[in-house]
């Protein structure tokens, strides 16, 4: 109950994303969103399941309700895939934001007293002082509003928009490569989709067959009941006729 699985998830490509244990929630959430965004830009709708070492689920499904899809099309191990470039992944976070929403959110953070001053330095001490679970969008706005950032974790520093786009140049080809290996032109992908759709068709067929046999059973029972009723009517008509004869 209450879990949200998109209605069109049958046809969506399914990616499982594994993140290393110990990475911050705000970073893991951001990475998952970036991966989904970049893959959707290239492949259309994808579904994504995020977990730590195969156990925990990230932001796309709640921990209580999610189950690791047994038929994911591809597993992305963030650490293994990106290697030294992993921290740079968060540089792409700005791409996931609607430009019209940024200004509104910036004003709201200011209203709530959470927007850093333009001459402030955001560092680990500042981060420790935030007593709220930070969402990636808010964190992105905060680090880009501040005068400078100085975190021990490079993934956090990388939220600040890259000026020279070197990270994008590094990362985009990796996403292109993943997308290419999962495009519909790739021989394995249509086969997987056909397999999934076939399984769904089989399930539906079984359901229909079940309904058909239920209906047949109901029709047979109804016919039997009708025959029984006809016989009873015959007996009653006969009795009535005899009663009328006796009465006359």
């Amino acid at each position: 109950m209450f879990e949200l699985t998109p209605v069109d998830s049958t046809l969506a490509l399914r990616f499982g994303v594994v993140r290393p244990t110990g990475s911050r929630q705000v970073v893991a959430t951001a990475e998952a969103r970036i991966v989904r965004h970049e893959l959707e830009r290239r492949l259309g709708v994808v579904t994504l399941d995020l977990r730590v070492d195969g156990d925990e689920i990230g932001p796309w499904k709640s921990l209580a309700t999610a189950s690791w899809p047994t038929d994911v099309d591809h597993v992305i191990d963030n650490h293994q895939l990106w290697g030294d470039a992993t921290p740079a992944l968060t540089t792409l976070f700005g791409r996931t934001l609607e430009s019209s929403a940024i200004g509104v959110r910036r004003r709201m953070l200011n209203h709530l007293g959470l927007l850093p001053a333009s001459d402030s330095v955001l560092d680990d001490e500042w981060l420790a002082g935030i007593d709220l679970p930070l969402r990636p969008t808010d964190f992105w706005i905060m680090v880009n509003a501040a005068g400078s950032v100085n975190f021990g974790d490079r993934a956090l520093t990388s939220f600040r928009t890259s000026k020279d786009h070197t990270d994008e140049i590094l990362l985009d080809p990796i996403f292109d490569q993943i997308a290419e290996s999962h495009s519909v032109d790739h021989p394995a992908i249509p086969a997987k989709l056909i397999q999934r759709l076939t399984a769904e068709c089989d399930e539906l067929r079984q359901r229909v067959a079940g309904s058909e046999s239920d209906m047949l059973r109901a029709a047979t029972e109804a016919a039997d009941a009708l025959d029984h009723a006809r016989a009873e009517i015959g007996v009653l008509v006969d009795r009535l006729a005899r009663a009328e004869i006796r009465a006359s």
Partner: protein
Amino acid sequence: MTSDVIVSRSPVPSADVPASVHPSVSFVLVTFGTDRIVIDTLTSLVSSLIDAGGKYEVIVVDNPHPSDRQRTLRHLLLGTRGVRIVRPDRNLGFGGGCEIGALHARAEILCFVNPDITFAAGWFEPLVEHLRDPGISIVSPVLCNADGSIQEIGHRLLPTGWTLPQLVGTVSDGLIDVDFASAACWLMRRDEHERIGGFDPDYHPAYFEDADLAVRSSILGGRRVVDPTVSIIHHHGASTPDTPTTLAQHDVMVKRWPHLRWTQPRVATT
């Protein structure tokens, strides 16, 4: 801005929110000098969810009212258990209150609810089901008055920037598309709320922030719908002793969306 967070622990609660480590839905209520009606609202909310089987949390953002900063808190502490009460050090308004509540929320579905609502069993499940459709941005029930008459089936945004509650609507796919629905009760996926940017503080303290958010949702292609099969009772105006004026907020709306008349799809009425 600082805010305290208290979890209510009344030994004899009218509203007892079951503990949930990983809630699927976060209900966010904003109060401002709200009286006992908030307890009635929470009691009916919790009762209506008993059979739903979902895990949820309730967050009340208690904006301090200048006349009595403790009024709502006293009711909450006496009448509820398991409610997370966020107490900002100043009045953040309705939009700001919703947003600070959303920051504390842990679930991926947000349900903003006024503190003057009566819920009946079965109201929630159909609404949350609609959120499976990624094209739906905001979903709301029909709001009724205490006498059962219809208060609104969403609102129509007029070219003047003012809004008009609708009492009828055209059903399509079981839903009624509207310009916007009052944020007295609406559900959104959290990622959708973030994608749109959430409430705009320029409408502080209240009114028109829901219409503004709906316009932005519309521009980004999101549907704002009302489920005509679901209704709740909204005791309009009972949530706060103060009713803010709306002229300034209307002014912001008109200046923000000068081309309102052509950015909004019209809703056919019968």
